[in-house]
């Protein structure tokens, strides 16, 4: 696959004006070259967009650059999440193969309970059975009861660069 520069769309001014940028984003996505990524600059984490573009096969990686300053990179599928070996069994019934994660949340460097809020926010935007991936600095002990209550499953893999979590919305 040819490596192309991602296309950048800066929505910060428009969002501050209270604009409606969804049509613009969708138009931009339609105009992407095959394999090309889209880099969005926003003033908040555009959680609902993950579901919209996820359905079009985009993976996303969000970075919080500062107060009210987010950069989200939407990359077309294929390079989907590798299958993580799980060390801990999910809380919900685990039926073997999980679909690849369509969302990646990098929660490192965030103060608790921010990582938990981001995971649960994103989880609520998944379709039943869909999976998200998150990288945390530590194992989210307080998240487990919340996932249990929501009937979601989790697989945890501790790695050198952080704790990698796969969270699946209950069926």
């Amino acid at each position, binding site marked *: 696959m040819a490596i192309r520069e991602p296309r950048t769309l800066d929505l910060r001014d428009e969002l501050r004006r*209270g604009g409606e940028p*969804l049509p613009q984003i969708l138009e931009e996505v339609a105009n992407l070259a095959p394999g090309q990524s889209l880099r969005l600059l926003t003033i908040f984490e555009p959680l609902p967009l993950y579901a*919209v573009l996820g359905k079009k096969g985009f993976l996303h990686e969000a970075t919080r650059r500062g107060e009210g300053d987010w950069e989200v990179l939407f990359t077309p599928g294929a390079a989907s999440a590798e299958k993580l070996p799980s060390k801990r069994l999910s809380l919900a019934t685990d039926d073997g193969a999980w679909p690849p994660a369509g969302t990646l949340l990098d929660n490192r460097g965030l103060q608790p309970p921010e990582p938990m*809020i981001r995971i*649960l*926010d994103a989880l609520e935007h998944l379709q039943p059975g869909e999976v998200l991936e998150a990288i945390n600095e530590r194992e989210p002990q307080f998240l487990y*009861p919340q996932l249990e209550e929501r009937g979601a499953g989790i697989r945890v893999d501790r790695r050198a660069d952080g704790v990698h979590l796969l969270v699946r919305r209950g069926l």
Partner: protein
Amino acid sequence: MLGHHEHIGDLYECHLVTRLWIVRARGGKTLLTGGSMAPLTERLSRWTLITFACALANFLLAQALIVLGFTWPSAALTGGATLAAVHLVTIGWLTLLMLGALSQFVPVITSRALLDQRLSAAALVLIEVGLVGMVTGFVTRDMARAPCAWCLVVGGLSVCAGVVLALVNLATPLLRTRPLPLPGRFVRAGFLFLIVTMSLGLLFAFTLRASVSSHGPLLHLASGVGYHAIAGVGGWLTLTAMGVSYKLLSMFMLAPEERGVLGEVVLGLGITGFGLTVAAGLLDLVWHGSVMILAERAGWLLIGASISAYLADLVRLYRARKRRRIELHNRAAAGAFISLAAALVTAAILVISGRAARVAPPLVVLALLGWLGGLGLTQLYKVIPFLSWLTRFGKMIGRGWVPRVQDLVCEPCAALWFFLYFAGVWLTVVGAAIETPLPMRGGAALSTLATLGLSREYWRAWRGTYVRLPPAVSSHAPTIQREDLRHGHP
């Protein structure tokens, strides 16, 4: 946070979060239902919170004993009321507080669950009942014919049984975790010293009982009590507080958790120092010799080095934090660290001036009320709102409007109490240093008032008193009652 959600609404209306919260049914389908909170979280938090409440009550009682002038210097240093106050602080306040906090933190440190939550409840009951017995035993000890001489022994046994249950619950995940991270190793060392402290305490209780029945003085007792105190205040409470503070401070200030060589030095010197001092001191009572005295002095030096390294590491930790504006609990914690530094200087002065009494009251006040008590009160100001937030709003995260943890507290309201608390403690220290009751009682009155004020702030954080619904939610949802919010129901 609300602005954030409103923008999401602009962007993609059908996921409008505030509306998801308000409109429970869309197209006949329930989007968000009420119901009970996650039972596990609730149960877990409830016992921890009850433990904290008992701990605060014990602390207030102990301070009241000082304010009312029942304790040293108005009464004897080894008098019943003084010992009752000391044990109300060390067991009733600090040990309960630490055990309660550890029931939340050990799972975070080890990534493992506790053995059984019911053990926390049983431990609390046994410790609290035992403490009542111990306090009764101490207070009535000075009376003619000592009407409740057995209270101390039975109470002490009950406290020990409670601590053993708590230790089984907490130590199981600690011992199963390998490699254990640094904060966990501090706690593990603290547990060993807790067992030593408890065994010595029980021994004294039996000895005291025997001395009462035989009406004979026991010389060994007074000299050994100091080592029981060093093992408890130093080995158990200080080492554990160091470990927990490393974790808590770095988590909430976004500072690096890896403490490197310095962290290892603090732990290594601390264990060796407290261990050597207690072991040599106790052996010295049996086999009196210069080697033991030398070993004990070496122990004191190591303790001093450990605390100095810890304080230096804290400065490094505060400086390396990514979060510039830190929350009140971490700003106020500086009062506790200053008290620890002051305790270190006081101890050095006492040793150099040759007045290293076995029990030096200003040192005890600095360590118990300033360092450990101050750290406890400041960190509770984060732990309680966090647990409250988790219990009341955990179920609503991602599904509706949720306040920030900091929305549960009113920092300007609590800041004054923290200031008064430390001012009161330091006045008490001055009173203890000059052995004058008035400043000591006045200082204790200030710190008691501050503890009461802070207890009210904790209660408000737990009840969600300060939480305000954002205008966008409240204007669209006139049916949402504050009471519903408090109970975690949308």
